[in-house]
């Protein structure tokens, strides 16, 4: 599992929130024939929380990492 994570370079929380905003319900949305179990997390709930969190995070990051991003690819 660590090997998987080592390749991931996006660690900023705000980036994760942006990713979640996309991968949870966008892209090619089709139903597979199996449901993947996710340990102890309800993804629907997570999706709602992300929206609220991202707003709060953005406020906290005023002049911080957002400023650094400044339109650069993340």
């Amino acid at each position: 599992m660590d090997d998987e994570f080592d390749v991931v370079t996006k660690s900023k929380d705000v980036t994760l929130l942006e990713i979640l905003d996309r991968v949870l319900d966008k892209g090619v949305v089709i139903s597979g024939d199996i449901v993947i179990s996710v340990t102890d997390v309800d993804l629907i709930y997570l999706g709602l929380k992300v929206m609220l969190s991202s707003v709060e995070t953005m406020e906290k990051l005023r002049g911080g990492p957002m400023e650094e991003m400044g339109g650069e690819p993340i």
Partner: protein
Amino acid sequence: MKNSSKIYVFCIIDSNNINSISLPCGFENNSIYCIPLNDIGIVVCNFSDKISDVKRGVLLHENIIELLMSSFTVLPMKFQTAFSSHEKTLSELFKLYNNFKENLVRLTDKFEFGIKVLWPVDNIEENLLKNIKATETSVISGISPAKDYLRKRYMNYRIKEMLKQKAKILVDEMDEYFTDIAIEKKLKILQTDKLLVNAAYLVDKTQKDKIHIIFKRLKKDFNDLEFLFSGPWPPYNFIKKKRTED
């Protein structure tokens, strides 16, 4: 590669092999490989049936798609898309082949970028309230509690409507900045009170430098707003969906 029977699907690409690029391992350290679907490909890895760490899973999903994006046109799948077998994956996705092809052609050499804009809604609301009170001509002292209640409700309604109008005007003004480069756009206004707009734009890869210039102009011209720019992303918001294609 472990010979697990279940298949996790990362994305669809405009090639039926991924030999030209090097990818890290997928879930449970299984290799990522491509299942050819005529001239396009389904990028997958085998896995058992659960994702034990959602954060890592999401990051891995996005990371693989982003690596593929540098060499191919990609149609990212929603996180957690999986099938019970290789055969089931092929048979189910083959039904969508034409739709995949249409999207791949339409989205070649394009990417999306995102903008979230926060506005100081509390201050704006306060100012609106002051303005309304200043222009109210009716005498409000001595009115009955019932009338006072209705008056407050109505004032609340007026403020909300004025905020919506103001938001629409601001978003239209900001949207103008992208007219020359946006091929398609998705604008969600006031998803929450503070989130003025959550926007995604589809642009051609050749326009990347222009986007940076526009971002800087926007930040300068609307300096009382907070911006979060992100991208380039695979075109998550611009895949035209068809539920079935039998």
